[in-house]
């Protein structure tokens, strides 16, 4: 019974959402359980945060490599979390100040740092070694050139339009890129659809964990 009832719960919840499209009377029921879902997700996020805390606590306790930094992580978690829970999250609170001067610069610099690595990766990885790599390189090259004003300002008036970086970039995006991305979308969606169906029909049960 520890597995059957949850499986029925999953089936009923999923089927209500699907049937709602055909049976308008289910609309209120669906709306109600959707609100429950948000609450459950909120708890799931708490579980995630707690897992983060637990792992770092164990790292400290067992003195694993880099454990002193885990103390910093825990201080950050409690500092930010408690400030927000107690003092509120509106504009001009301490929480807002911490967001602006701690979280904001760290978050944006982490990703800004990647600019340098993207440049060195372009230097190291973009080599016309094979047909594949050449296509990759050519597309990236044209897109980079076509995106910025500097890429097109040198184009003289007699230059054929189909050789200008901006025009070529637009065609790459609309044809080559759209085709590739669409295949990825279709392929991935078929995966999601079949997994969803397997879950609802009780074929996929790994979410129930081990016996």
């Amino acid at each position: 019974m520890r597995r059957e009832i949850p499986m029925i719960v999953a089936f009923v919840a999923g089927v209500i959402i699907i049937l709602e499209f055909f049976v308008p009377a289910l609309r209120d029921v669906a709306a109600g359980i959707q609100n429950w879902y948000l609450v459950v997700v909120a708890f799931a996020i708490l579980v995630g945060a707690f897992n983060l805390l637990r792992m770092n606590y164990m790292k400290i306790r067992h003195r694993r490599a880099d454990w002193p930094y885990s103390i910093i992580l825990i201080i950050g978690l409690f500092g930010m979390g408690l400030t927000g829970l107690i003092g509120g999250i509106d504009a001009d609170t301490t929480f807002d100040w911490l967001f602006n001067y701690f979280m904001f610069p760290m978050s944006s610099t982490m990703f800004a740092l990647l600019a340098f690595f993207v440049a060195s990766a372009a230097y190291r990885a973009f080599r016309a070694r094979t047909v594949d790599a050449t296509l990759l390189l050519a597309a990236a090259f044209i897109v980079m050139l076509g995106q910025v004003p500097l890429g097109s300002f040198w184009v003289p008036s007699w230059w054929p339009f189909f050789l200008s970086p901006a025009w070529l970039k637009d065609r790459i995006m609309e044809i080559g890129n759209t085709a590739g991305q669409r295949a990825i979308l279709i392929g991935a969606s078929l995966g999601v659809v079949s997994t969803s169906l397997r879950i609802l029909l009780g074929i996929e049960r790994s979410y129930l964990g081990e016996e």
Partner: protein
Amino acid sequence: MAGLFEPTSRPEYGELSPERRDELIGKIARAIVERSLTAPAIFFLESTKPLSFIGSQVMVFFDPLVRSIFNVRGYDDVRIALEDRRNVDLLLCEIERYDAEWRAEVKERKKRRKAA
């Protein structure tokens, strides 16, 4: 509360043995190379290397959720491997090495097929 902060049978907080690490890296490298994704994979790994630790912590955060929905083997191992940035470099080297080997092999096979 007893089980809460205790190690479980899962290698949650352990370190990866060199053998297991090499096995994992070899497996990922083979999967990438044999799908002809060498070039994009190298670019992606090279350009996101500084974020490997953050990636591992995101995996910690979503661990209970992911594990609830999917049966992912090796999730812990990948997560632990990501905590050490040097492993990303090892993976990059392995991809480059195996790529050369694999391409030579494919060429050889084609030659033999033509001869036959």
